[in-house]
Structures are given as C-alpha cells and as structure tokens.
C-alpha cells in the first residue's frame, strides 16, 4: 500500500469558467463551465470531436482560450512554479519525440524540475516498461506508448491527474491495470480527470461525470443520476397473452407501442402505473410490467445524440435483408 500519503487538499481542483475556444470560425468549446473536485475520478465524456481534448489543452495552458478562464487551485497553469508536481497529464495525441528512449524522455522532463534519476526509474517500474525503457519510443506499441504517457504524468507525484483516453490501445490486462491505478490515485486524495468516448469505461472508473457535446456542457452529475436522467421517458416492457388488445387500448391513450416480439410490447409515453390501470380497466391480464432503465451507453447516446458532429449514414438492416433474400 501507499505509505506517507498526505491529507487530501480539499481546495485542489480544476475550474473551467465560461470558456470558449475558436479555431478560425470553428467553435471547439462553447461557453463551457464546470469544476473537477478532488479525491474522486471525474469522467469527461463526449463523442469524438466534442471538444474534450481541446478543453484539456486549455487546462494545461497549451492553447489559450478565446474567452473565459481556466484555473487550477485558483492559478493559471502558466503561473505554476513547478507544474509537474501539481498536475500530471497525458494527452491523447502522442507528445513524445520518437527518436528518444523512454528513459531519456522521462529524464529530460524530470530535469526541468530537479527530479532525480531514481524517480525516473521508479515510474518506469510503476508502469511496467523496464524491458523497453532504453529503446527508442518510435518502436513502441500503442499500449507501451500509453504506459509511458502515464509514467510521465506520475513523474512529479502530482496532486491532479489529467488523462486523455488513457485506456486507448491497452489490452484487457492493461485496462484493468489503469482502472486500478486510477482508483488508487483518487483514493490518495488526488484529483483525477479523465476523458473517454466510451461509456462502459466510465461506468467502471468514474464517480462523477462531465458530459459535453459540440463543445457545450450536457451534464455535470454523478454516474447514477446521469443514467436516471436519461431513463425518464424511457420505455416500459409489457408482456401479456392479450398483447393485441392491450396495444389498441394503450394506443387510445396516445402511447407509442412497439411490438418487440409475440406477446411482448415496449410502451413509450406512459408510466408502468398508468399501463397497469389501463390494463385493469380493459380487464387484460399482464404477465410482466418492467420499466426499462437506460444503460449508460443509451443514456449517453440519448443525451449526446443531437450533438454528435458526424453521423454515420443510417443503414436499414431490414432493407438489406430483403435485398439479400431477393438476390438469392
């Protein structure tokens, strides 16, 4: 276990205030405000192109916001006297010279802060890249590159960690490793802020969610609340022997009813209680009445649906089947 943990700093957090970032006429981040609280893992979610990486670059002082302010514990990143001790970051895009060895890359970073070689070796051990530490980074696999990125982020033993898609390119074992590591880092009282476009990854790792789409804030909430919010207005599953009669009865109450399979309906626009009452009035026997809770994925899709920048052209699978059958 970790020895010598310091007490969590309750004021250590990332504050994004009314931040807008434009590149030419393209708005990457649009009047975005949120806070990242210490001691927990905050997930930063959004479809590809939503502005997650831009927001992280703004936090890290790599890009300057067009409007608004970003502060870490009340200070701008540029004003931190020893940034690697305050914030450790790993960006999604590789930020490492391919011609240098992992060891020398970390050493050069360490030297800017007067961090010794022993710490460099320590983080190399920590992320498990001892075997390749003296090799040129250009030959690293995606997973190795991610581990090196994590090593660089941990170099200064920072209180805040910012990780852009850390699970990218990792094998299942690597994903488990990063998940465990992140939870432990948060348990030490560190602020962990990580982005992903994958809901399932967030469900496993994050306590709190900041969801953005097209550069705008969509939700700033807990994982449970996020799912709950997306579930309101979701379907209710009804199973009955008299499905046809029930469908007519429900349709008369302005509900949208889908016949999922024989005897199974999915009802939109009515609560379970309302459906029960209608069934009672019509003397229809119900075998099952289940409010369907949206999965994290569905919640994500529903809330970000309109904000996805590039939609895939919808392919109707039924039509495809028909075509195939006709051709056969």
């Amino acid at each position, binding site marked *: *276990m*970790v020895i*010598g*943990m310091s007490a969590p700093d309750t004021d250590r957090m990332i504050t994004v205030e009314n931040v807008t970032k434009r590149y030419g006429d393209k708005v990457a981040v649009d009047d975005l405000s949120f806070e990242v609280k210490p001691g927990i893992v905050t997930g930063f979610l959004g479809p590809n192109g939503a502005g997650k990486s831009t927001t992280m*670059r703004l936090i*890290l*002082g*790599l*890009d*300057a916001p067009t409007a608004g302010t970003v502060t870490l514990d009340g200070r701008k990143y*540029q004003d*931190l*006297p*020893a*940034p*690697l*001790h305050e*914030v450790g970051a790993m*960006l999604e*895009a*590789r*930020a*490492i*010279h*391919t*011609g*240098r*060895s992992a060891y*020398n890359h970390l*050493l*050069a*970073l360490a*030297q*800017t*802060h*007067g*961090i*010794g070689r022993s*710490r460099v070796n*320590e983080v190399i*051990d*920590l*992320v*498990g*890249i*001892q*075997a390749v530490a003296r090799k*040129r980074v250009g030959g690293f696999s995606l*997973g190795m590159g991610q*581990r090196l990125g994590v090593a660089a982020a941990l170099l*200064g*033993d920072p209180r805040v960690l910012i990780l852009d898609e850390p699970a990218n390119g990792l094998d299942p*074992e*690597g994903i488990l*490793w990063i998940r*465990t*590591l992140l939870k*432990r*880092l948060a348990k*030490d009282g560190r602020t962990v802020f990580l982005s992903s476009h994958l809901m399932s990854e967030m469900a496993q790792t994050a306590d709190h969610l900041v969801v953005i789409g097209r550069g705008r804030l969509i939700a700033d909430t807990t994982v449970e609340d996020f799912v709950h919010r997306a579930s309101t207005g979701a379907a209710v599953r009804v199973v009955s022997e008299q499905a046809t009669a029930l469908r007519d009865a429900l349709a008369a109450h302005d509900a949208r009813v889908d016949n999922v399979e024989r005897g199974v309906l999915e009802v939109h626009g009515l609560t379970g209680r309302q459906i029960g009452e209608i069934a009672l009035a019509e003397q229809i026997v119900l075998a099952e009445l289940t409010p369907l809770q949206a999965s994290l994925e569905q919640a994500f899709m529903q809330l970000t649906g309109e904000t996805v920048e590039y939609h895939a052209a919808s392919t109707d699978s039924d039509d495809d089947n028909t075509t195939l059958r006709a051709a056969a």
Partner: protein
Amino acid sequence: MSATSATLDAPVRATVTRERVTQARVIRSEWTKLWSLRSTRWTLLVAILGMAGLGPLIATVQMNRWNHMGLGDRLHFNPINTGLGGYHFAQLAIGVLGVLVLTGEYSTGQIRSTFMAVPKRLPVLWAKAGTFAAVTFALMLISGLIAFLASQSILTQHHVQTTLDHAPALRSWVGAALYLAVLSVLALSLGAIVRNTAGGIALFAGLLFVIPGLAAILPTSTQNAINPYLPSVAGTGILSGTRDAYTFSPWGGFALFCGYTVLALVVAAVLMRRRDA
C-alpha cells in the same frame, strides 16, 4: 503485459523533492534532449568531419597542383581561407540541425510535453539556443583548429603556410566558430518560427544560399549596394583571411549578422508565447 500484477503494489507516491522550474534546470534538460537523439549525434559528427577534414583536403589538392597554377591563382591564394574552407560544409549541417532542434519537437508532439513541464515556454527557447550554440562553438573551435593546423603543415610543401600568431588567422579561426554558433541560433529561430522541418530548412537555405545567388545576377551597382547586407556575406567576413570589395569590416559585418539573428530569435520568442502548441 506480465508486469501488471507486479507493479500494482509499487509506490505511486515517492520521495520526490518539490523543487521549482529554473532556467538552469531547463538547460540541463535541453542538454539531455540534445544528446539523446541519434540524429543530433550523426549530424554533429558530419559537421565536425566537414570542418576538420575539408581544409586539409583542399590544401592537399592545391599543393599537388601548385606548379600548374597560374600567377593569378597563386597571388589570390590565402592559407587561412584554405584551412577554414570546411565551414562551407559545416554550416549546412549545423543549419539543418538547428532547424530540427525545434521542428523535431513540433512534428512529433514532444513540444506539448516540453511546454507542460515549462509552461512559461521562453526558458525552453533560451535553453535550446544556449546549449546548441555552446555545443556548436566548442566543436567548431576544436575542429577548426585541427583543420587549420593540418592544412598549414600541408601548405609547407610550397612554403605558403601561415601561423595562428598572424592576427587575421587567429580572428578567422575563432570567427569561424563564432559564425557557426550564431548561425545555429539563427537556424533554430527560423525553425521555431516556421514549426515545420521542410519549411524551416527551405527558409534557412533560401536566406543563406539562394539570396546571394539572386543578388549576383542583379546589375552590378545594385549588387554592390546590397552585398554587404546579405546574411551570408555579413556573417562570414569574420572568418575570412581576405576582405572582399563591398563588404563591411569583419566585426561590423558580424555585428549585423548577430542583429539578424537576434531579430529572428525575438520573433520566435513572441510567436512561441502567443501561439497554441
């Protein structure tokens, strides 16, 4: 990866002393960065070989042909220029490497890691310029001396050698190293401005090698008026044993060349502070 389970219990938090970023530390870091790239070591080796080797080679050719050389050639012969002729080649290697010092970071994304560690950014520019210029100066001073001494010993065949006690010889030897050191900063600044390897090298080559060629095809009066201001002409007076017409004094020209370099460095600094990384 098999290391996973073993590393889960390793300490994340360590005995890290919390020290701040200083200019000296950034220089230390840039020193490590400079030498930890294979391309740097090779290019510097090429510059050394060019600087140290070409002078003696030219001297050898001249001595072998001496008896066949015309009176004009013999009159214009200068033992200093022969000995330090390798700078023509060394400046190309130094310039390309200078451009790469920054564009290499931009093209690989390394610059983001660099600026995350040193968010004030300018200490990085000063450290890169300082270390690269110092390394260039030291290496070129040594290889220039080797070239000079070796060449002079070859030139004794026809007794046309000179020595370092000879004032222009001493100035030219140190001047060659100074010129290449300042040139390295100029190239590095151009790389920082353009942030693209191909563009940076094109700009560097354009300024040093193409513009003189263009000036040469202008009418003579215009050419003579422009000539002293060309970076390559202004900068190389200091390393020449002879003085051409329509040039500034060796130190005056060198001061102008330093001025160009400072200008490029200042533009690079302003842009580095302002632009998104």
